[in-house]
């Protein structure tokens, strides 16, 4: 049973603590939900109290992820003595933290206490991209890291090369932000609507035939809207080995959130969209299998040409669409070819954005010559830089 704590003997207060605990784990719980939980507990016959976990799970969860996460959290909060490796002492409302979390919490606490006067300024390690041009978030805020502490979550600044597989769920919110900024395009064609838009005389008269020529309902039409499509091309060549798997995860977020097309290339190109659409742990293996035998080099220009010819017809790349290339720009094709193929993409009306794993834009010969055909270059080496994805739309 629940261990009563001096601070919270009232069941509602205890439930409030539980709700707070769940919120810390990403659950969206309001007062209404807590009330509902109390109501359920009261309505359930006393003999059936073990069912409470199942009922509260239904109230608290809102998605499959939360649904799967709930039983562990319930167990850890209400029955800490049964959970191996964690204890909940009286008055302490939070689950015993794992060491990395504890360290992160300490960092945050320290940064709040120490303010800006603490000596021993040290910048957090942000991998290979840690130079004067990176760490944008911290510099933008005018605050520097103090004594190993940082005002921003360390994960934001950590280079992709240092990420653990468990950290990768954070791409979707980033892509979601881009999606929100991507405006639907107004087309010239009209489509019928039920109650909005301009009156369409011919349709109205035609539908009046059913009521003896009396117009009882006006037919209305409005301009069609089209959501711009996104095509993501990921370079999986040898030089991109370290970053490719992160970009594959990122492109998966694009496929899931924006229904994008995802293609991978090094010396040849393959469409991996169907593989990305399914929640399978083996995506990486499958992509490896698809690209196996491509060879280790990179032929960007001819791969893009092949992608345009085989995978992207005129319907899948139109005016206003986004053509995102994740690559370091090292190309073994003749330098002028890349500019020519990007010009073809631009001619279709699409916006070309080049996302590179380095802080500076790639300086390869091919890319220098093709730079005029790229709407925007953007570094994509850590989560903080991805937060600026919506900027891709600004210049275009």
């Amino acid at each position, binding site marked *: 049973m629940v261990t009563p704590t001096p601070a919270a003997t009232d069941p509602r207060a205890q439930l409030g603590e539980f709700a707070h605990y769940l919120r810390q784990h990403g659950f969206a719980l309001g007062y209404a939900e807590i009330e*509902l939980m109390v109501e359920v507990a009261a309505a359930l016959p006393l003999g059936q109290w073990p069912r409470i976990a199942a009922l509260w799970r239904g109230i608290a969860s809102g998605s499959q992820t939360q*649904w799967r996460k709930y039983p562990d959290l319930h167990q850890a909060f209400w029955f800490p003595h049964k959970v191996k490796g964690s204890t909940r002492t009286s008055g302490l409302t939070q689950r015993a933290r794992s060491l990395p979390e504890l360290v992160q919490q300490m960092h945050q606490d320290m940064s709040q206490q120490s303010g800006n006067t603490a000596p021993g300024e040290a910048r957090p390690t942000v991998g290979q991209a840690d130079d004067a041009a990176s760490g944008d978030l911290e510099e933008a805020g005018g605050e520097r890291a103090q004594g190993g502490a940082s005002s921003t979550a360390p994960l934001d600044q950590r280079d992709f090369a240092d990420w653990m597989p468990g950290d990768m769920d954070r791409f979707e919110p980033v892509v979601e932000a881009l999606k929100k900024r991507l405006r639907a395009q107004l087309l010239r064609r009209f489509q019928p609507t039920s109650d909005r838009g301009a009156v369409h005389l011919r349709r109205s008269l035609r539908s009046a035939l059913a009521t003896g020529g009396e117009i009882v309902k006006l037919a209305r039409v409005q301009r069609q809207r089209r959501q711009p499509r996104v095509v993501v091309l990921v370079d999986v060549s040898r030089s991109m080995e370290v970053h490719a798997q992160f970009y594959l995860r990122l492109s998966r977020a694009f496929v899931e959130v924006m229904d994008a097309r995802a293609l991978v290339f090094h010396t040849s190109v393959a469409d991996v969209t169907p593989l990305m659409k399914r929640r399978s742990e083996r995506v990486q293996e499958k992509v490896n299998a698809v690209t196996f035998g491509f060879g280790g080099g990179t032929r960007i220009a001819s791969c893009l040409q092949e992608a345009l010819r085989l995978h992207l017809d005129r319907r899948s790349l139109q005016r206003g669409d986004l053509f995102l290339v994740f690559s370091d720009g090292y190309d073994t094709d003749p330098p002028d070819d890349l500019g020519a193929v990007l010009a073809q993409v631009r001619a279709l009306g699409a916006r070309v954005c080049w996302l590179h794993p380095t802080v500076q834009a790639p300086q390869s010969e091919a890319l220098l010559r093709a730079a005029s055909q790229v709407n925007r270059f953007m570094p994509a080496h850590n989560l903080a830089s991805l937060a600026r994805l919506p900027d891709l739309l600004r210049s275009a």
Partner: protein
Amino acid sequence: MSTTADTATPQGLRERLFHAGYIADEDLASLVWMGLSLERPLLLEGEAGVGKTAIASACARALGRPLLRLQCYEGLDLSQAVYEWNYSRQLLEIRMTEAGQGDRGALRDNLFTESFLLERPLLQAIRSPEPCVLLIDEIDRADEAFEAFLLEMLSEYQISVPEIGTLRAISKPLVILTSNGTRDLSDALRRRCLFHFVDFPTLARETQIVRTLVPEAASRLVEECVAFVQRLRKEDLDKTPGVAETLDWVRVLFKLGHHELPIDPQLLMPSMAALLKTRNDHWQVTAERVGKLMDGPRMGQDAGVAAALK
């Protein structure tokens, strides 16, 4: 036997659902019970074919309520889901009045009343004199605008018709929404619902389901089929077979006169159409692969475990 008394506890409701032909696990039965007692809508999410829609019809049978179903699709609008004015009848009424067969003053008052309203499933559900079960199927296919409209109906059990005013529920229906998770639903909608993720059933439960729904099939055939499908689900398929597919497959094998899974995988291949629904899956699951899945070390043991648990 009183329905109300039986459904007063989660256990009683679970038994009623069982008699109605749905084998619910404890969590699901508890959730339906909670939905009934708190008058909250249920949101069921899960892969296609795991029995989300079947829950609604089983609830209707178990509770002795009529079932109203609204199938959502892209472009679904209020005139198909909630109400529509009966324009033809209104026009007829106007013409009759003009011809001197009615009262003009009364016409003005009556033209926009409930008698000229064509009720669609949502309005029918809240205006039904006896409580019903309302199934809003595949809500993720509907537009966000429709989802937003549902918020009023789901929280207040009322519908606003501009010409009349607010129509309140005569009886509160048990609302069950299903979603295949093809798009994210809004937080506002999720908050109003009790959430349940319907997962693929365990070996023992699926065996029990198939036995109950296909009683004519031999027990050994059922056990082996279920054990096979459970293994097949672990393969990386485009469309993982659900319970509905298992049922179809067992029925097909029964019709073909099998009392157990044939040893030769080639004999099984024609019937695999019941389980594999995409070209890619057909291409991936060859006779050889089927043979491996069947020979796998302990298929008999899997079936044995299910038998022991029943």
